[in-house]
């Protein structure tokens, strides 16, 4: 059964959470420094699985210092007192979602050693819990509202080195986590829209790509998979769908493994480098030149499970080795291929002594790293019988996902002793209660009434975050339908013609709506003016000045004369309108053209 919850991470546009730097992205790099991170031991002397896997990559981190970063982001100065403006937004959001609010806020350190935090941990605090929000498709429970610091921005990743920029590190983030109440990929998308709106309605959020990101928690057979960092809302539904399919594949794979019941306890790593001395595979040759070895394992009973119409477990295994820096695996379901010939496959089968039902896997890597990688592969193979593996995955642009790391355990949290606890007073809560913005449904109704547009149009304005623009244009030219048409039909249509509409900003539109209000143009001229602006980089209205009635009358008469003989259409009037509007290039109001045309046609005895 499909069950999903989402986590929304929304950046705030206040100063940073623990210092006075601006919460902007900033590309002016002032300098760099280099660090390494070590996993720290938990209370039992054990390392967290996620942290350990990360440290296996033995990476060095290069951090770029920007104008909006200081010693705090560099982990060279303790955090300052928490930004109270950001904290109040978190309390407000908790109130909006009917949460129980903690009496005293305690920041925690959540261990993250992929380099995205210079400290090796993310500071995070629970502000509200056990809330809910009611929607058209039912109540969504809100497990928690947290206030945390944003991670550094990854700029580059090359062999063993990850480059991060500090501009984004420390921007306050509100994290809202729902319960697993979403019952379909569609509900996932709708929930994200509703929660996203609620956060925006505080008016304290950053905008632009990446300023809001969703994590998805999806389970179909009980085990939870987390997909981290989806920044495009439209991708959310697709990801949920693909992940559902992937999980169903893994569940049926588990059934198949149970049926075949192979002995997976005794899997031995073999060095098969000798088979490839003369290989035609470029990838393997390159590896051998660097002194790498070809290592492999026999996987009993897995023939056809690695890659076939029904199963794609090979892909899962490839993702596991990729995480520790090995590009991929070769397996028997896809060989011969990739320059590996039939003879080599035969020798491999001999070497691994594979029976008909068995598969084999080989990798090319530096010896120790390769062995480590294969140990992870074996571990993953043994877990396949349990079905879905609890893990964290990352989204790809096409809506599929890839393995990132095992799901972190809760032992990764310990107190941030550098930040004193903060009392949430009754007074603060009462004050913030008075500032709760309207709900999504209320806001849609409101917009629809205020601007005289449909509920559907109002919802689109909300979902695409255009309330402010809309209200500004409406104050210049109070016709909601025209403004809506410009923003949501005309501009996308022009973009659809292959033109670059990025230069059409609110300044350009302001001029156009003003001209409209002053009667210098009619609304029909807008597409022509915008195309003219894109082509020539200027806004000019003279060329699109509305014609006076006499001039219009003359043109209409001549168009009717020219075309009336050719028209066999039943709707002569409609056809003529089309020709006329094309010819007039926006220099006349459609209704006026229509009424003149109708008179002309009537006079000539042409009826509808």
């Amino acid at each position, binding site marked *: 059964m499909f069950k999903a919850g989402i986590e929304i991470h929304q950046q705030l546009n206040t100063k940073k959470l623990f210092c006075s730097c601006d919460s902007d992205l900033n590309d002016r790099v002032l300098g760099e*420094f*280099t*660090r*390494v*991170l*070590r*996993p*720290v*031991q*938990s*209370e*039992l*002397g054990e390392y967290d699985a996620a*942290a350990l896997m990360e440290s296996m990559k033995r990476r060095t981190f290069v951090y770029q210092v920007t104008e909006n970063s200081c*010693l705090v982001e*560099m*982990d*060279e*100065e*303790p955090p300052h007192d928490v930004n109270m403006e950001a904290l109040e937004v978190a309390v407000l959001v908790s109130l909006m979602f009917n949460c*129980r*609010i*903690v*009496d*005293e*806020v*305690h920041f*925690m*350190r*959540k*261990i993250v*050693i992929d380099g995205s935090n*210079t*400290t*090796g*941990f993310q500071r*995070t*605090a*629970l502000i509200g*819990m*056990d809330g809910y929000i009611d929607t058209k498709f039912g109540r969504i429970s809100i497990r*928690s509202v*947290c206030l945390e610091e944003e991670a550094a921005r990854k700029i580059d990743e090359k062999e063993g080195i990850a480059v991060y920029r500090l501009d984004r590190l420390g921007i306050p983030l509100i994290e809202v986590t729902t319960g697993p109440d979403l019952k379909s990929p569609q509900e996932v998308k709708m929930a994200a829209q509703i929660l996203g709106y609620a956060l925006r309605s505080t008016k304290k959020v950053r905008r632009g790509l990446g300023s809001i990101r969703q994590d998805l928690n999806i389970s179909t057979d009980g085990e939870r998979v987390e997909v981290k960092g989806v920044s495009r809302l439209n991708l959310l539904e697709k990801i949920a769908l693909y992940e559902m399919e992937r999980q169903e594949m893994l569940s049926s794979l588990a059934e198949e493994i149970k049926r075949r019941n192979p002995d997976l306890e005794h899997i031995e790593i073999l060095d098969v480098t000798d088979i490839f001395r003369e290989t035609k595979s470029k990838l393997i040759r390159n590896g051998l030149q660097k002194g790498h070895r070809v290592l492999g394992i026999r996987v009993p009973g897995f023939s056809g499970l690695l890659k076939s119409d029904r199963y794609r477990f090979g892909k899962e295994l490839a993702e596991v080795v990729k995480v520790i820096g090995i590009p991929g695996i070769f397996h028997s379901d896809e060989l011969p291929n990739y320059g590996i010939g039939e003879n080599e496959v035969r020798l491999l089968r001999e070497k691994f002594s594979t029976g008909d039902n068995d598969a084999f896997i080989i990798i090319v890597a530096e010896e120790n790293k390769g062995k480590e990688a294969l140990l992870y592969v074996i571990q993953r193979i043994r877990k396949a019988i349990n079905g879905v593996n609890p893990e964290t995955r990352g989204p790809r642009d096409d809506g599929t996902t890839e393995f990132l790391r095992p799901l972190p355990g*809760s*032992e*990764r*949290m*310990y*107190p941030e*002793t550098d930040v*004193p*606890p903060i*009392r949430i007073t009754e007074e603060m809560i009462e004050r913030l209660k008075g500032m709760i913005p309207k709900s999504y449904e209320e806001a849609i109704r409101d917009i629809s009434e205020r601007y005289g547009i449909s509920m559907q149009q109002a919802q689109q304005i909300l979902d695409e975050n255009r309330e402010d623009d809309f209200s500004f244009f409406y104050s210049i030219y109070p016709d909601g339908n025209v403004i809506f048409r410009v923003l949501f039909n005309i501009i996308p249509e022009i973009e659809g013609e292959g033109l670059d509409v990025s230069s059409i900003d609110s300044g350009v539109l302001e001029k156009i709506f003003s001209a409209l209000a002053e009667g210098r143009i009619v609304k029909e001229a807008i597409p022509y003016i915008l195309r003219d602006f894109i082509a020539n980089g200027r806004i000019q209205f003279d060329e699109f000045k509305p014609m006076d009635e006499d001039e219009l009358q003359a043109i209409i008469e001549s168009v009717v004369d020219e075309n009336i003989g050719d028209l066999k259409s039943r709707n002569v009037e409609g056809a003529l309108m089309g020709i006329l509007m094309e010819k007039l290039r926006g220099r006349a109001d459609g209704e006026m053209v229509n009424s003149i045309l109708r008179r002309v046609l009537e006079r000539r005895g042409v009826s509808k």
Partner: protein
Amino acid sequence: MDFETGDLVEIKNKKGIFRGIVMPRHAFSGEDIIILKLDNGYNIGIKVDDETKIKIISKGLSKKTERKSKINENGIPVSVLGTGGTIASYIDYSTGAVKPAVSQEELLLAIPEIEENYRIKSRTIFSILSENMKVKNWKVIAEEAFKDLDDSRGIIIPHGTDTMAYTASALAFMIQNLPSPIILVGAQRSSDRPSSDAYLNLIYSLKLVETDLGEVVISMHGSTSDTFVQVHRGVRARKMHTSRRDAFRSINEKPIAIIENEVRFISSYRKRSGPPVLRTGMDEKVALLYYYPNMDPEILLDIGSRMHGIIIAGTGLGHVSNDMIPVIRDLVSRGVFVGVTSQCLYGSVNLNVYSTGREMIIAGAVPLKDMLPEVAYVKLMWVLENYPGEERDKMLQNLVGEISERRVGIEYV
């Protein structure tokens, strides 16, 4: 209410029921707050009043994990003497409290590179934050280090960074003719953090035991990056930043060495010698006074009268205001040693240039060349006890590298 830290409890108040493990109180927490660790790992503060009900679900288990260090019999013998400080602080995960120290053994165990190459003999002498260090602690460290000098190729002393340079200076005077280096190592980020500088500082400092260095040194990050460590002569080092990893700088001198995978000496140093000489006597009646404009001469008189020696950190070349000079004359005439250093830290004092300086000299003040104020303070205690009657000569004599006769025109920050 008879619950304790570590117990799983249910708290019922106006807001409902909260379930979690009771955490230790934070010093800044409200009086009426209980801190709970929830199931999801978060700590939250819950207000309790007369109507609040607290139910113990289960008592906490005290988890104690013993881990034995693997001793590498063939490794290079090194002594580690724990004293406390950031480098040795650790979070107690079950309670969430930051504890000043686990055993040094445990700290070092976390670093496989160390276990492989060295035979570590470690003991914790005490566990105190370095701001609480006293002269008596310096003596204990010196005595303990002295005991191990012959059997170890080097002595590593993890130490809080705040007063590390004072301790290093004290050790430099107390133990001379070193057959092995004494290396003070600190951290600006505690070793329970993934980004801790403790690891690099420790791993690289240990490389010094494989060299012929025979001095008391401080070994810390050379830059904000985790790339190299600088080795500073103890009597030349100073903590110049409150929080950065590269807080320590050698003043008026280049560092002794840079360690980046390998040790690279970049200025002259004392080689291992012996037999070592231990003299831990200190006259604690010494004060360090920071002069400021409009200072009341009475302050100098009041403090000076109760001391056997006083080090003044003067302005610029070493000056104090004119009205202080009669007090200096008075103190000197009563046998109080008055030494002069500079607040500038960089550069030497010189009381010949301006009339105030000349008056200070006539009054009996002793300009202490380019010695750091803190070093002069420590040295004077040691000199007063060990060389009575020779204070002036010994204070002006370079004993362990605390004074240099020439300063080259390199960058000074």
